[in-house]
């Protein structure tokens, strides 16, 4: 039985949506039941957190929330992969996985840096790739491609407005 079916059987209430595309399995969970699902995944053998990233759906009306935080898990025994997505509104935060997975530490810092999504309970949620007073979050869709101000230095302590 695939992990997708087993999740749908064990905790149908916490799963908002699930689908398969080109062999990839995806589940979308509510932010409130995210930690429970992660614990369940660990007990199912999904012990390798491959990646954490996010997608900004600014202005796409078919998407109910602005952000989607995307987690990729791999089960090293069965080599099965699962994508877990959590939908977040702007200014909402998600519990950090840095305690359970040490690899989440830098990935969450990167998501915070690039999208401005915060993770509660993270030991050191600072920017990873840009500097501390960098204006704005580069991978948000409203951040201009050329960075707006070429040196990104004017008004650098306030959030970027374009």
């Amino acid at each position, binding site marked *: 039985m695939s992990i997708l079916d087993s999740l749908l059987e064990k905790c149908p209430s916490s799963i908002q949506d699930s689908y398969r*595309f080109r062999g990839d399995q995806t589940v979308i969970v509510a932010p409130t039941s995210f930690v429970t699902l992660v614990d369940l995944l660990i007990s199912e053998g999904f012990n*390798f957190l*491959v990646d954490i990233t996010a997608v900004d759906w600014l202005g796409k009306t078919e998407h109910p929330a602005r952000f989607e935080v995307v987690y990729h898990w791999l089960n*090293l025994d069965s080599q099965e992969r699962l994508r877990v997505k959590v939908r977040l509104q702007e200014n909402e935060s998600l519990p950090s996985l840095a305690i359970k997975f*040490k690899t989440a530490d*830098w990935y969450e810092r990167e998501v915070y840096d690039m999208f401005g999504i915060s993770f509660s309970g993270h030991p050191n949620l600072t920017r*990873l790739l*840009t500097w501390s007073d960098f204006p704005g979050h580069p*991978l948000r869709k409203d951040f201009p491609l050329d960075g707006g101000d070429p040196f990104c230095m004017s008004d650098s302590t306030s959030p970027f407005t374009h």
Partner: protein
Amino acid sequence: MDSIAITKTQLEGDRMIVNMGPSHPVTHGTLRIVLELQGEIITQATPEIGYLHRGVEKLGENLSYQQFIPLTDRLNYTSSMMNNVGYTLAVEKMLGISIPRRAEQIRVLVSELARIADHIICLGINAVDIGAFTAFLYLFRQRETVYDLFEMAAGQRLHTSFTRVGGLFRDLPPEFIPLCEQFLKDAPKAIDELEKLLTKNPIWHDRTKGVGAMSIEEAINWGYSGPCLRACGLAQDLRVKQPYMGYDQYEFDIPVGTSGDVFDRYLVRVEEMRQSLRIIRQVVKTLESGPIIIDDYKIALPPKEKVYTRMESLIHHFKLIMHGMEMPVGEVYSSTEAANGELGFYIVSDGGKNPYRIRVRPPCLPIFSSFATKVRGRLIADAVAELGSMNIIAGELDR
């Protein structure tokens, strides 16, 4: 970033702050590590990355699928072929197409050559950092041949951009295979020479054994992949565990270590070079003739002679350049076994000409994130050995 700034107590205490990088011979690209020392013992290491951040993912959202290929060269620039292959595989997975057999075989061939070149750089430079200079020179002759082969195939030595969605940019020239066969004869000798210099060298043992040792569980928790994970003892290799590009048709072994220290990583990389040579030998022997790119002009450009002579091909060419491919709406994650671990591409498509979101999962980012923990309480010299064997490539780390 408050932790990076030197506080008054840090300055006045008996600890010393050493700034390694952003430009330092052992940092392999521009990255900075702030070391707090008590004598020669590291009490705290704070890595600071992002000096080579070029916004590859942001740029990708504004380029078409084909235009992103040159940017993948600049991720792990020591084995750009494998990045090209990894990216195009992700786009092909999104399109749901399979490519001609010859193209697949040539991709395997150049990937394994790139793996050898990457391991040569990693091992050679790791040895130089520790003080063994000769191995670097012996191996770099072979790396030169690999780059000559890449130049023949792609016209470029470093930034190859060899693959295209649906196949390859061009076929191998006739002089490629003879040089490749010569390389297959010379490379094993060079690897043996390297082993003669290092494997039983007591100084090499003193500097590498026990440095950075790690259990499998810990390595998995840190998100290790590639040679660093295999050195811990877990035979996780995507070429075998989740075969792609017909890797299951070639015979090769996955070398594993026992303790995960710098010495084991060295041994794993040396053996992987031999296994890559084994794969290349099989590919050269079984290389089929045939097309090198898919025969679908909605995905791959039609040949130039058709574009100049036929109306329909001209339209295909125009449509493909101006409007791009017809992409399905959806998302895929595709990963390949690159030289230093799992290289993943996560592509989100909204059906447009450009990807809506493109994410590169760099293999060395999770590995490097463990650096501070691993060097705490050890000597600076160990940090140098550890950093070299992690194979940090800043282009990939910072994107």
